[in-house]
């Protein structure tokens, strides 16, 4: 969006410069310019320099216009440098804490656990077995173990399919077992708690 605004502004300015320059045909005889025309020529030259500067600014992006002194500096990161591992660890801790916090609805938990087992029996993931499934509160934890790293890599992106309802969730490799994936899923109608939303 920002880049498009810059391009539009530059296009207007470049267009203005082009019109000003095109008003002087190179084939027309050039009478002695009156003083006012000399000022026009100076304006055209100034316009050309400014258009060139603007073209450069557009090519470099808006950050340069905000901080001209930073032209030679490396581009700033486009987002806060938060390590994914930290977010994954925070997310894992949060859902594990919630799972350990008690079970206000044991009937849902047992039904949900059974549904997970049924889903896996009907449509399991190739090369995987269901190691464990447990639900508490509004969350379920599903542990899948794969026969090989290749099998895991082939279907890791589909691991969320082991949840038999419309859910939000989180899938991660088990740091203690490279052949295991852990799927955390919310109860239908609820959302997975996120660490940055606490």
């Amino acid at each position: 969006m920002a880049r498009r605004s810059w391009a539009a502004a530059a296009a207007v300015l470049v267009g203005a410069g082009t019109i000003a320059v095109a008003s002087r045909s190179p084939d027309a005889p050039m009478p002695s310019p009156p003083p006012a025309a000399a000022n026009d020529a100076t304006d055209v030259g100034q316009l050309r320099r400014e258009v060139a500067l603007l073209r450069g600014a557009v090519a470099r992006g808006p950050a340069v216009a905000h901080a001209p002194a930073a032209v030679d500096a490396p581009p700033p990161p486009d987002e806060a440098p938060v390590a994914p591992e930290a977010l994954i660890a925070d997310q894992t801790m949060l859902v594990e804490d919630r799972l350990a916090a008690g079970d206000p609805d044991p009937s849902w938990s047992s039904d949900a656990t059974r549904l997970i087992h049924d889903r896996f029996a009907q449509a399991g993931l190739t090369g995987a077995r269901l190691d464990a499934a447990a639900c508490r509160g509004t969350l379920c934890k599903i542990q899948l173990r794969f026969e090989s790293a290749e099998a895991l890599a082939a279907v890791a992106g589909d691991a969320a399919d082991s949840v038999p309802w419309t859910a939000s969730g989180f899938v991660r490799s088990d740091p203690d077992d490279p052949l295991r994936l852990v799927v955390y899923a919310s109860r239908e109608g609820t959302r997975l708690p996120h660490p940055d939303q606490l």
Partner: protein
Amino acid sequence: MRTSLLALLPLVALAADAHAQDRKHYPGNMCRVASTSYFDNDGRVANTAATSQKFECPIIRDNVNIQRTWVYYKDLSATDGVKCRLKTGKIDDASGTAYWFEDAASGNADVNSTPAYLTFVDQPNIPDGYYSLRCYLPGVTSAGQSAIVKYLVAEVE
């Protein structure tokens, strides 16, 4: 005209920075069916097969994280629904895989001949991560073909 044009630069920058959300409308026909035939017309993608088909809809990440996503669809099946999953993940590396997912679906019995939409809310910010949107469209019925009309992604700027 004697006023330097360069003086306009801060104004242009301020106008650009006034937007806190970067919204992009993707035509439904950017979605590609993962198995059999597909059909696109007027920017939509429709399922021409007799059975439910899976479509992958690319999302370009160019900001921080997704704040909202809407998938506009037509569901012409009274026995099956449109089901979509939005994923945000990190690129697999030595530490393995990790992604967040969110599902949304229309009711199996619901029929929407005019576009309805599914909504996805805040996704986590995964530096250098990826987005993935996958949808299943019901098979053709006597009422016609179910379709993804478009999807709208709003990233935080």
